[in-house]
């Protein structure tokens, strides 16, 4: 294993469904041991990319590799994949299904059953081991699917909207499990629309729009690409226009200003006070990912083109 080599490498990936272009020259890497956020609005091509990466779709063009090779089921025993479309064998018992998948992932029957019992105990489903899956609630089935995903202690976790349909308790459980896997050195690639999850877990992210990378890098880098510095202001009076900032939000006695690249916070504060504004609160912050997400996907005309800091195409 070449540790310098990214675990996931995607280069110039194109995907067409008949005449429809879904992915258009996408390139990015996921480094070993990092937690990577794969973001984008619905229909932007995230699930398609994951399916192509895992050999479920055939790419129209491009390179998609895991550990330096095109995915094959040989890597299945090292992979934990929680797909967007969830489902297991609903007519079978919880224990039978978990044991089956455990064995397919390379565990012995005893190992699979031991893990299953411990996991079911942890998620308060120990008494339902012999029930058929369709006798469990939707949330309980999600827990089982999550257990199946991690039962082989995967070195790569790919989670497609993992918290979709989860209640807060299950969501907490899932995030704890992701953190555990992360602490154990696993690489995690997750698709999510929950920006607080991204900010909590991810080191780097990519934002996909219409099959192309709109932003790519560490969270700091992406925030900087999209006018990262913001001032939250409580005031009375009138805020004048200035080349040093742009007013991005204005309510009664409250405003948010996006700073120009050359401006600094103290200079802007002096300018505001100098213009006669009564400033009662002043907080310098970075733009939230939520804001950036809304900027990119909420209003197409308002989207900034990022300052490229990585292999974004």
């Amino acid at each position, binding site marked *: 294993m070449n540790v310098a080599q990214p675990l996931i490498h995607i280069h110039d990936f194109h995907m067409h*469904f*008949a005449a429809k272009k879904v992915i258009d020259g996408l390139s990015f890497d996921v480094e070993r041991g990092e937690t990577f956020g794969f973001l984008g609005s619905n229909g932007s091509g995230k699930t398609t990319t994951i399916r192509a990466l895992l050999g479920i779709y055939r*790419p129209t063009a491009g390179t998609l590799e895991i550990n330096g090779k095109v995915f094959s*089921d040989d890597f*299945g*025993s090292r992979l934990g994949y929680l797909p967007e*479309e969830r489902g297991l*064998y609903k*007519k079978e018992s919880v224990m039978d299904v978990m044991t089956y998948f455990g064995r397919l992932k390379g565990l012995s029957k005893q190992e699979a059953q031991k893990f299953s019992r411990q996991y079911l105990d942890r998620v308060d489903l120990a008494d339902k081991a012999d029930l058929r899956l369709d006798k469990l609630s939707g949330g309980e089935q999600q827990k089982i699917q999550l257990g199946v995903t991690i039962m082989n202690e995967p070195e790569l976790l790919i989670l497609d909207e993992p918290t979709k349909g989860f209640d807060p308790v299950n969501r907490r459980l899932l995030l704890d499990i992701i953190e555990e896997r992360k602490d154990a050195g696993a690489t995690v690639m997750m698709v999510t629309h929950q920006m607080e999850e991204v900010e909590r877990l991810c080191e780097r992210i990519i934002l996909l729009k219409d099959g192309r990378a709109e932003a790519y890098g560490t969270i700091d880098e992406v925030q900087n690409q999209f006018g990262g510095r913001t001032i939250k202001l409580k005031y009375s009076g009138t805020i004048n226009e200035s080349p040093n900032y742009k007013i991005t939000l204005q309510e009664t006695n409250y405003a948010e200003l996006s700073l120009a690249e050359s401006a600094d916070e103290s200079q802007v504060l002096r300018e505001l006070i100098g213009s006669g504004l009564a400033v009662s609160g002043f907080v310098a912050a970075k733009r939230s990912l939520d804001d950036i997400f809304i900027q990119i996907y909420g209003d197409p005309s308002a989207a900034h083109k990022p300052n490229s800091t990585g292999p974004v195409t």
Partner: protein
Amino acid sequence: MARHNLGTVVQFEFTRTVKKRRFWIATLAIPLLLGLVFALVFASSSSTQSRTEAQKSQTVDFSYTDASALIDPAIAKAMGGRIEADPDTAVERVKAGTLNAYFSFPASLVTDPVLVFGTDQGIFKNGTYDAVAKQLVILSAQDKVGSPELTGALQGNFDTESQTFKGGQPSGGLDTVVPPLLFLVLFYVVIILLANQMLASTLEEKENRVTEMILTTLNPTTLVVGKVISLFMVGAVQALVFASPMAVAFVFFNDQLAIPDFDLSNLQFQFLPMLVGALLFIGGFILFTGVLVSIGAVMPTAKDASTVFAPVMITLFIPFYIVTMVVSDPGSVIVQIFTFFPLTAPITAMLRNAFGSLDGVSATIVIAELFIFGVVALRVAVHLFRYGSIEYSRKLSLRTAFSKKS
């Protein structure tokens, strides 16, 4: 990993099928039903036989007239009969209940019926009158012939042993036809029992949205092959369960159930026809399995699949519409078409093989064709499963599935 996973898939698929209560209810329902039918036939047969025996030996009070001059008065007397002194009023007396029964034997028993009149004894016992009248005629005729040999000859109570030759060798007759036909029966049993399960088993991954989990864990070829093997094992279990009451009936209740008395020791198991039959069976099984799995992979639901499933299954039965031609005129164009068209080939070729009209070249071509098409169908099935089962709620476009790139 692949071999290990194949065993895991086979074990999971087989175990989960045979563990289900529904499977055993459905499987046991047929032998139970057969057992019930056999029991009814047994009871009915025993009752009829004992009644016939009783009626044969029964004495019934009756009078008779005999225009044929065949009836022996001594025999009639022994059976409870007497010559009717007043034939004109006999029927009226039976109606009035003063005479139990009256038989009128015509001048010619060949052209005219024996008229039997009797007082009502209930629906079952009323048959006694006919039985006694017939027995009286038979015993009187035997008495007149005076030779058990002639009587036996007249009644056809004798056996024949025939021997035919083909190419200077004994051709064996029906005793050589039956063994290769067993493959035909087995083929029908396996396909009919398993076809729905083949279709449903591949649809299940799609309907349960489990495809992505499976395809990232397991090679689709391993999954499909594992399913086919487990289905075959399930079919074998079902066939054994179904066959058991028939075997019990054949061995222990042969006479009571009026089962034809096959002398199995006469069956001739000839090597080549048996080998060809076995190869046709295996090739046909692979072909139909591949086709059915492909249908399951393309269609989003069992309901949608049924529209394509039905025509495929009909091809199993079409050859029986020309079975007489298959036997009597195997060289005809229609038989040749059915012999070589892949979906009708297994049945037609198995019939021809059993009846000795499938020559070596044709057999080789059909077997090769079935194996080649079967393997191609299985590969197509795996391909369609891989790229079709992800289309959860819609029918797969074959054009998309077979395009070089999606």
